[in-house]
């Protein structure tokens, strides 16, 4: 996987069908995407569509229970960030691939200790482009500030970073070139963007490498 959009929301949560979003992703330079709510992993028009599950409960036990219910582990499990203790607990859970919406939480909810834990446990932190496109003024300034902080921690501790359009429509999807431009707003270099877009591919190939085949 060369470039993966880490979260899109096809119909019914969005207004575009899965096939149409895959078509748009291919035109925009992506070869894979994580579709939240997709039934299974499949290939559509040359785009690998991964099944994505978003866990938005702020309760640790509920999240653990939901992870157990998700089955064989082929789905990409994303957990919405919460307060400091919740995020720390999530980082210690098995099966979590991505923590998202860090920008919506308090500034101290993700610090250098968590950054080190994320790096050790190979949990990625998601950069959501949706608020950069859709919000204006102080909310967007706060998001840019948080992403700058995340990138500072990333360059120091080297945890995985993913980039998602978090699009609910084909109109919300952006091309790889556009992603580079948008990420330059918070000081992310082109190489770092390229690396972040390949993160899911690396995580999945790494996970497969330790599978024991009889």
């Amino acid at each position, binding site marked *: 996987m060369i470039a993966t959009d880490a979260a899109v929301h096809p119909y019914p949560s969005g207004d575009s069908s899965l096939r149409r979003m895959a078509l748009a992703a291919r035109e925009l330079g992506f070869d894979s995407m994580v579709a939240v709510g997709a039934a299974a992993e499949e290939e559509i028009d040359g785009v690998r569509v991964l099944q994505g599950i978003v866990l938005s409960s702020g309760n640790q036990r509920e999240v653990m229970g939901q992870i157990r219910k998700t089955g064989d582990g082929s789905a990409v499990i994303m957990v919405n960030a919460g307060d400091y203790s919740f995020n720390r607990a999530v980082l210690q859970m098995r099966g979590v691939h991505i923590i998202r919406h860090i920008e919506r939480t308090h500034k101290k909810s993700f610090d250098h200790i968590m950054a080190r834990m994320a790096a050790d446990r190979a949990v990625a932190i998601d950069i959501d482009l949706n608020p950069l496109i859709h919000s*204006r003024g102080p909310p967007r300034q706060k998001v840019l500030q948080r992403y700058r902080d995340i990138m500072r921690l990333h360059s120091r501790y080297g945890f995985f970073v993913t980039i998602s359009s978090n699009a609910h429509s084909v*109109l919300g999807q952006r091309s790889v070139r556009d992603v580079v431009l948008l990420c330059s707003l918070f000081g992310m270099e082109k190489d770092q963007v390229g690396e972040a877009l390949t993160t899911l591919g690396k995580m999945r190939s790494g996970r497969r490498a330790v599978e024991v085949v009889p």
Partner: protein
Amino acid sequence: MRDKRRYVLARIEPPWEEIDPKELYLAIHEAFTSLFGDTRASEAMVAVVDCRDGHAIARCTRGCESLLQIAMLTVHTVDGRRVALRTRATSGTMLALKRRINDYPHSCTVQARTLEIDGNFYYAHQYQGQKVDVIAKGFKKQELLFLTEKELEMKNHAATGIPDGI
């Protein structure tokens, strides 16, 4: 002295939306000012010089073209209508970009038709081969769905998972 200028070509999505150049200018200018402030906006001297066939050409001073491209990426509504601007090319002359628009005439060809699904009528715009944008006209609001030809062909519409046809 006249400043050196740069022109940015963007594709408007969906291409069947008829966008007023003035409204597009206001949307781009608002996005630019919101992101980079009044000072940079005054330096960039953003303008929309052409808007037709699903494409728009915006102008700025040399050195501000990447800022203009970023600002165009953050435009999501023009005059209350949802659109996306996909930047395609940057050039020092308008002529070069107009040639590029003419190089892709197939992308702008939109076929409008009416569809009947489960007894209900819908407006559909088909373009680029398999893309179909379906507008379900309701009493209170217009619902817009982005589908593909394959999904419409399926009798039971199981691929989209859309109940009652659409």
